[in-house]
């Protein structure tokens, strides 16, 4: 292939890799913004840990577990570490793929891997013990995420559900990344229990406002920027037509998600809630992720608007179920992830009854495996080392007890 075109493709993929990396900053800002000051260091620590350990684990085995080559469709492993394909002269074989080199492929996919665990981090914030959380992250990012990914992106059974006619479609990971994280968040939140003060004695949900909404807003806008790489890079080349329409559908869905959530929550609660607006933007982004390559601009707006409404209802539903998700991760990543995946069967160029069934099968398979794995890992941790901090520690703050530090030493008020 043309060397200039290949270089352009590879550069685009490396830029997208960097944009996905920046999403970890967005997640960090969003999570600390929507929680209380006394737990800031703890949340930042978890997020920094996740990106570092996620990359290392993906090097050790994740990449070859997710892309095992020819395999039985359920689980395969191509060996530990990385082994770059070489050509006859002993240099990197550029015929590996038309869109990117072997190294770019690894790093782009590695950036995705850590995202799934970050989703859990927000949901369990302010009460999870850091040690057990790190163990959970290692197992979940190291094994569960790559196995589910291999079912589709690695050429496994979900990708061939319809034989020659097609199969499950998840463009950039509404299910494979976001729901994988979202299911674990749901299980973890259930096993962990709500924060002290989240539910009154009569069981009514109470507000625990986040301490820094400017930071949360910055986080969401950084995440939106990161999504240019998350979806734009999932084209897997710099194909002009494909990348440009993907960025259009991604941005329109984000905008519509924000507007949908803001309008719906202001009608429902008679109040302009910034945090719902922010969650709505993310809901729109997660919702379009499965079908960003299939939708027309108008369809992407519809998907976003519906995602925005889902966010508002989802946050209320989680509260109603007596689950405590401080940042709305379950509504954003799990519920909108399911919505986006199913939307591929309803809107866009693949829409149809059969496709809808395949989408449903993908959601179900990922859900069953993720819930079961997360439940087993979390339950073992809960029964052995415990997953929740002491009451005293939770009230005084995880920063002080887990880390012996204060995020803002100049501001001593709670």
């Amino acid at each position: 292939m043309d060397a200039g075109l290949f270089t352009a493709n590879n550069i685009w993929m490396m830029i997208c890799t960097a944009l996905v990396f920046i999403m970890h900053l967005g997640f960090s800002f969003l999570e600390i913004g929507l929680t209380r000051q006394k737990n800031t260091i703890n949340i930042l620590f978890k997020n920094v840990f996740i990106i570092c350990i996620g990359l290392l684990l993906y090097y050790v085995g994740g990449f070859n577990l997710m892309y095992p080559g020819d395999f039985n469709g359920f689980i395969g492993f191509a060996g530990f570490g990385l082994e770059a394909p070489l050509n006859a002269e002993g240099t990197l074989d550029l015929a590996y793929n038309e869109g990117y080199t072997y190294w770019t492929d690894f790093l782009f996919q590695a950036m995705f891997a850590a995202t799934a665990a970050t989703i859990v981090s927000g949901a369990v914030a302010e009460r999870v013990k850091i040690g057990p959380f790190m163990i959970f992250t290692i197992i979940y990012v190291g094994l569960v995420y790559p196995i589910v990914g291999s079912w589709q992106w690695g050429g496994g059974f979900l990708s061939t559900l319809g034989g020659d006619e097609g199969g499950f479609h998840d463009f950039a990971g509404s299910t494979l990344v976001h729901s994988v994280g979202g299911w674990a968040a749901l299980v973890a939140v259930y096993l962990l229990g709500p924060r002290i003060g989240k539910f009154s004695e009569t069981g009514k949900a109470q507000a625990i406002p986040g301490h820094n909404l400017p930071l949360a807003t910055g986080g969401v806008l950084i995440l939106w920027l990161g999504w240019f790489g998350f979806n734009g890079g999932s084209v897997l080349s710099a194909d002009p037509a494909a990348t440009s329409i993907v960025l259009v559908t991604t941005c329109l869905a984000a905008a519509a998600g924000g507007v949908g959530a803001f309008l719906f929550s202001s009608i429902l609660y008679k109040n302009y809630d910034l945090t719902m607006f922010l969650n709505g933007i993310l809901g729109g982004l997660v919702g379009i992720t499965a079908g960003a390559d299939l939708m027309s601009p108008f369809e992407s707006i519809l998907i976003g608007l519906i995602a925005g409404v889902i966010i508002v209802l989802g946050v209320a539903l989680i509260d109603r179920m007596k689950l405590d998700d401080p940042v709305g991760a379950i509504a954003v990543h799990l519920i909108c992830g399911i919505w986006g995946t199913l939307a591929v069967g309803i809107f866009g160029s693949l829409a149809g009854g059969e496709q809808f069934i395949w989408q449903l099968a993908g959601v179900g398979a990922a859900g069953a495996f993720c819930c079961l794995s997360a439940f087993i890992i979390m339950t073992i941790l809960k029964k052995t080392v415990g997953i929740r901090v002491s009451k005293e520690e939770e009230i005084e703050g995880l920063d002080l007890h887990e880390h012996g530090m204060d995020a803002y030493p100049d501001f001593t008020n709670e």
Partner: protein
Amino acid sequence: MKKIEAIIRKSKFDEVKKALHQIEVNFFSYWDVTGVGNEKQGHVYRGISYSTSDIQRRYLSIVVSDEFLDRTVNTILETAYTGNVGDGKIFISDMIDAYRIRTKENGHAGIN
């Protein structure tokens, strides 16, 4: 010599400060305080409405000589007033003495 402590609405602070300058009360300290009272402030966060009795106000501490007392208090009473619940309170107490650190003067000279 008296100490006047006034808790007023933050929204009235600029007006009160200006009025105090006009009657030549030029020196005072203030800080933001949180208290509880009859007033409830309504909030909504992520679809959950809640009200808090924690109220934000500004606290003024003014030390004046006796002949300034009435006009200072009257100025605050007039300018901090809205007629709604939560306009604030004024407390007056005797001040035994005051020193100006730079000149070591005390009494009346210490505060003006």
